C-alpha cells in the first residue's frame, strides 16, 4: 500500500514542536516504550483481541457460507494477515506524522479519484478501480482514512468548537471526494466517506442547531440526488420501500435474507446447517449478506454475541478517542471508530430489512479484502494514538 511505503521511513521522526512544555523533553519519540512486547509494537491489547476475535469468527462463517471451500478460508486468512500487517505498520507511525501528512494525502487521494473517473476499470457498471499493473485498488478506500485525517487536521488548527469558516472548509473537504465517489458510482463508499467528515464535525462539538440544519439540508438535497442515481440504485431504494413488489427480482435479496435470519430463531440452525445459505437461496451470502448467514446458523444468541464483540471494539475505540492527548488525535480516533459503527449499522440494517440495499460489507466479517484492509489501517491509527499517550499526561 502506498501510504505504508511512503511513511515507512518516517515512523521515528523527530518531533521538534514543544507540545508538552511540562515534560521538559522535546523529543518524546525516544521515550522508551513501557509495558510488554505488545506495547513495544505499539499495539493495544484489548483492541487487538477484539479484532482478532472478529477475524477468527469471520473465517468460521466464511467456511460455512462458502460451502466448506477451504480455499476461500485460506484467501481470507491471507487478506487478514496482510491487513493486520498493515495495521501493525501504521501503528508504528506517530500520530503527529499522520497529521502532518494529512493534506498531502488528501490531495493525492482526490487526484486518484479523478483518475479513476477518467481511466479506471469498470466493474459491475461502476468505475472504482485503478490498475497499476501489479496492483489494483480502489482509491475511494484511501479516502475513507484520508477524509477523517484531513478534516480532523482542519479543525485541530483552532480551538474547538469550530467556527463557521472551518465548518465550511470541512464541508468542502468532505463533499468533494464524496461527490467524486458517488459519481463512480459507489453510493455505499460515498456515504461512508461523507459520514466520516460529518462525524468529525460532530465530535468537534459543532452546535446541534447546525447539525440538525445540515441534516435538513441533506434531506432537501435528496430529490436532486435521486435524479442522478443509476437505475439499479433507484430500484434498490424502491425495493426497500416495498420488497414484495418484485419478489423474484430486486426484492429477492431482502426477502431471502429476512427468511434466513428469521428462520434462525433463538439458537440458529447450527454451523454449516443453514438451508437458506447452503441451498443458495441467499444471494451474496459470503460478502454483503453474510450477516444473514450468521443469523440463520447461530440464531439470535449468536447475533447477540457478535454485537457484544462489536460493541467492545467500538467502545474501546471511543475510549481511545476520549483519552487521546490532542484534538487531532481525538477527532481522528473518534471519527474512525464511528465510521466503523456506521459500517456495522448500515450493513446489519440493510440485511435485516431496515435500510435500503447499499453495497456496504459487514466490517471485518464479510469475505473480501478491500474494506478490511482500510478498516485495519484505521485501527492501526487508533493503536498508534493509544500507544503514544504519555503516561505523565494521563491525569491532566
Amino acid at each position, binding site marked *: 500500500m502506498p501510504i505504508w511505503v511512503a511513511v515507512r521511513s518516517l515512523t521515528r521522526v523527530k518531533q521538534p514542536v514543544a507540545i508538552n*512544555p511540562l515534560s521538559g523533553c522535546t523529543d518524546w519519540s525516544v521515550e522508551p516504550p513501557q509495558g510488554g512486547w505488545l506495547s513495544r509494537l505499539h499495539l493495544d491489547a484489548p483492541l487487538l483481541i477484539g479484532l482478532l476475535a472478529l477475524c477468527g469468527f469471520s473465517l468460521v462463517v466464511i467456511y460455512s457460507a462458502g460451502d466448506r471451500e477451504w480455499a476461500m478460508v485460506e484467501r481470507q486468512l491471507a487478506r487478514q494477515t496482510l491487513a493486520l500487517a498493515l495495521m501493525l505498520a501504521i501503528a508504528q507511525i506517530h500520530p503527529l506524522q499522520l497529521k502532518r501528512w494529512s493534506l498531502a494525502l488528501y490531495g493525492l487521494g482526490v487526484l486518484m479519484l479523478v483518475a479513476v473517473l477518467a481511466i479506471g476499470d469498470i466493474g459491475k457498471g461502476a468505475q472504482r478501480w485503478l490498475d497499476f499493473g501489479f496492483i489494483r485498488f480502489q482509491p475511494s478506500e484511501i479516502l475513507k482514512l484520508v477524509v477523517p485525517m484531513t478534516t480532523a487536521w482542519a479543525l485541530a488548527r483552532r*480551538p*474547538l*468548537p469550530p467556527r463557521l469558516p472551518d465548518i465550511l472548509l470541512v464541508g468542502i473537504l468532505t463533499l468533494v471526494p464524496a461527490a467524486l465517489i458517488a459519481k463512480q458510482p459507489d453510493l455505499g463508499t460515498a456515504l461512508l466517506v461523507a459520514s466520516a467528515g460529518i*462525524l468529525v464535525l*460532530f*465530535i*468537534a*462539538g459543532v452546535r446541534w442547531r447546525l447539525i440538525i440544519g445540515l441534516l435538513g439540508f441533506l434531506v432537501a438535497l435528496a430529490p436532486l440526488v435521486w435524479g442522478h442515481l443509476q437505475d439499479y440504485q433507484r430500484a434498490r431504494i424502491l425495493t426497500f420501500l416495498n420488497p414484495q413488489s418484485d419478489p423474484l427480482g430486486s426484492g429477492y435479496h431482502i426477502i*431471502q435474507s*429476512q*427468511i*434466513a*435470519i*428469521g*428462520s*434462525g*430463531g*433463538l439458537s440458529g440452525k447450527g454451523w454449516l446447517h443453514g*438451508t*437458506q445459505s447452503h*441451498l*443458495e*437461496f441467499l444471494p451474496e451470502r459470503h460478502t454483503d449478506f453474510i450477516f444473514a448467514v450468521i*443469523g440463520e446458523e447461530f*440464531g*439470535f444468541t449468536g*447475533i*447477540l454475541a457478535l*454485537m457484544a464483540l*462489536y*460493541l467492545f471494539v*467500538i*467502545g474501546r475505540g*471511543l475510549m481511545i*478517542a*476520549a483519552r487521546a492527548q*490532542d*484534538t487531532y488525535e*481525538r*477527532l481522528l480516533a*473518534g471519527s474512525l471508530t*464511528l465510521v466503523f*459503527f456506521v459500517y*456495522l*449499522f448500515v450493513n*446489519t*440494517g440493510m440485511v*435485516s*430489512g*431496515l435500510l435500503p440495499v447499499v453495497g456496504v460489507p459487514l466490517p471485518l466479517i464479510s469475505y473480501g479484502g478491500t474494506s478490511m484492509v482500510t478498516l485495519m489501517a484505521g485501527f492501526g491509527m487508533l493503536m498508534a494514538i493509544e500507544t503514544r499517550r504519555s503516561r505523565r499526561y494521563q491525569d*491532566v
Partner: protein
Amino acid sequence: MLANSLEERERERRLVGTRLATAALFVLLGLGVILFQLYRLQLEYHDHFAALSTENRVKIQPVPPSRGLIFDSRGVLLADNHPSFSLMITIEKVGDLATTIEALKGLITIQDSDLARFERLKRKRMRFQPIPIRQNLTPEEVARFAVDSYRFPGVEVQAELIRSYPQGPLTAHVLGYVGRINEEDLKRIDKSNYAGTNFIGKGGVELAHEDVLHGRVGYQQVEVNARGRILRTLASTPPIPGQDLYLYLDVRLQQAASEALGANRGAIVAIDPRTGGVLAMVSQPTFDPNPFVEGISQTDYQTLLNAPDRPLYNRAIRGQYPPGSTIKPFIGLGGLALGFITTRKTVYCPGYFSLPGQTHRFRCWRRGGHGTVDLELGIVQSCDVYFYALANQMGVDKLHEFLSEFGFGRRTGVDIAGELAGLLPSRAWKEGVRKQTWYPGETLIMGIGQGYFLATPMQLAAATAALANKGRFIQPRLAYARRVPGAVTATVFPMVSRQIQIPNPGDWDIIIDAMAKVVESPKGTAKHIHSPDYRIAGKTGTSQVFTIGQKERYEAAKVPMHLRDHALFIAFAPVEDPRIAVAVLVENGGSGGATAAPIARRLIDAYLGGSPLTHSGETAGGD
C-alpha cells in the same frame, strides 16, 4: 498564556469527551434498533420465516406409477412399456421459446414434424406441463444435451415409459391406445393422482380399465436449491404401480378372425358362453395405434379419419346394423315362451305377407315362397313370412319386452370404451323420438330384424352366447383378471350374469335344434359350413342397407357397393357344450349364408381345432 492554553485544552477535551459520550449513546441506540429488528425477525416471527424457509427448500414431487401391462389369455404381451428419452420443454419456465428452440436445433435434430407435434401438444397442454419437442433421443443426443443443459432453463431430458402395442393393428380396436393427457382428459380425472403422469387411456380397454392400469401416484419430498436442482430426497411415498391386465382375448384367435374377415369391411365378435369372455373382437379395417401414443401427425390423422372405409371406426361395438334374420331365433323363442305358437303351428308362405285389409306385400326373401312352414323350417330356411305372421301376432310391445331380455337396445357393458347401444324400437321410443305413432307394418319388419332395429356385433354375440347358455346372459368382458406386478396371485374380475326366465325350458332346445339344422339340414341356409368334427348352431342374416320398391327386385350387381346388403351370421359351437359364440358382420357382403357363415366357420375351426372348410367357393344357401 500557558494557563490559558491549559484551560483551553481542558475545555476542548471536555467538549470532545461529551460528544464522544453522546456518540456512544447513539451507538447503543443504533445497535438497539438493529437488535430489536432481529428480535422481531428471529423470535416474534420465527415461525413464519421458518415456514417460508422450509417452503423454499422442500418441494413435493409426484412419482408417477408405471402403467400396467396387458396380456392375452395365453400370456402374450399386448401392451408394453418401453423406456424412451424425451426432450421436454416446460414453456412457463422458458424465457424466449423461439430462441430456445433455435439453440436446441444446433444440438439435436429437430424436424418439422417434431415441431408440428410440439405446436399441437402445446395448445392442449396444462400449465407447467412439460411437453416433448423430441422423442426417442439417442444416447449420444442425451449426452450432448446434458453437457449444454445449463444453457436451457426449462428444458430437460425426461425418461418416460412409452406405451407400445406389439400386435399393432390387430388389437387396436380392442385395446384402444394411450395418449398424452389433454385438457379434456383433465376434466374427468383426479388431477392429484395424475400428477407426473403423461399418458392416459384414450379408448378401448386402455380407457375402460384406466383406474386399474394407472395405479396410484407416489410422492417424494425433495430438498432443492435455489436453482431448483434436487439435492436429496427427504421422504418418499412410493407409487402403487398400475396392475397388469389379463384378457380373455386370444391373440391367435384374433389373428384367425382377422384373416377370416380378410379384406372385407366388417366385424367379428367371439365370446366364450361359459364366461362371457371376449375371445376375439375384430373390426376391419384397422389402424396402427403406436403412432397415436407419441402424438400422430395431423396429416396422418386426417388421412385415417377421412379414409372412405373408416379404419378408426370400431364396428364391433360402435357399428349399429339391422340384425336381419339373425334375430329370428330370438323371436321364435319369444313366440314359444309367450305361448303364441307351438312347434306344430304352421304358416303358409306364398312369398309374401299382407296385413288383413291391406294390399301392401311384405315379401319373403324367396320369391316363390316356402309353402307350409313351421317354426323349425322358418328358422332353417329363414322364412320371412313365418316371422311376419309371428311378429304380427306378438305385437311390438311383447317383441320389445322379450328382445330386451337379450340385451338389445342397451349397451352390453363390455369393458371397451365407446360402446353404442343400438336401437330396439318400441312404441314409446317412436312416439318420444320420432313423434309418430307405431304402425303395424313396422312390427312386421321388426320381426325380421329390419326397419328401425339396430344392433352392434357385440350385442349379437352376447345374445347368441345367452342362447347357447339356455338363457344365462353374461355381460361380455375383455378383462379376466388383474394382477399387481410381481404378485403371485391375480384378482379375477367378477362375472355379471342373469337368467332369462321362460316358462318351459325345453323351448331353448327347440330353438337350438333349429339353429343346428341351419347348418346340418340339407335345406339350411348355412349347410355348406357343416363340420364333420363338431356341431354348429347358427343363423344367417342379411340386412338391407336401403329399401327397394314393391315391384323391384334386389340384384346385387346393380347396386352400388356401399348400398349392398350386409351379411351376418351368428353361431355357437359345439351345440352340446357351447364353448364359443360368434357374431360375424360383413359390411355390404351380400348374403349371410354365403359370406358371413364361412368366416364364422373358419373362426370356430381355429378355436375348436376342426378340419378346415374346403369348399368355400360354394355360394349355396340363401338369406
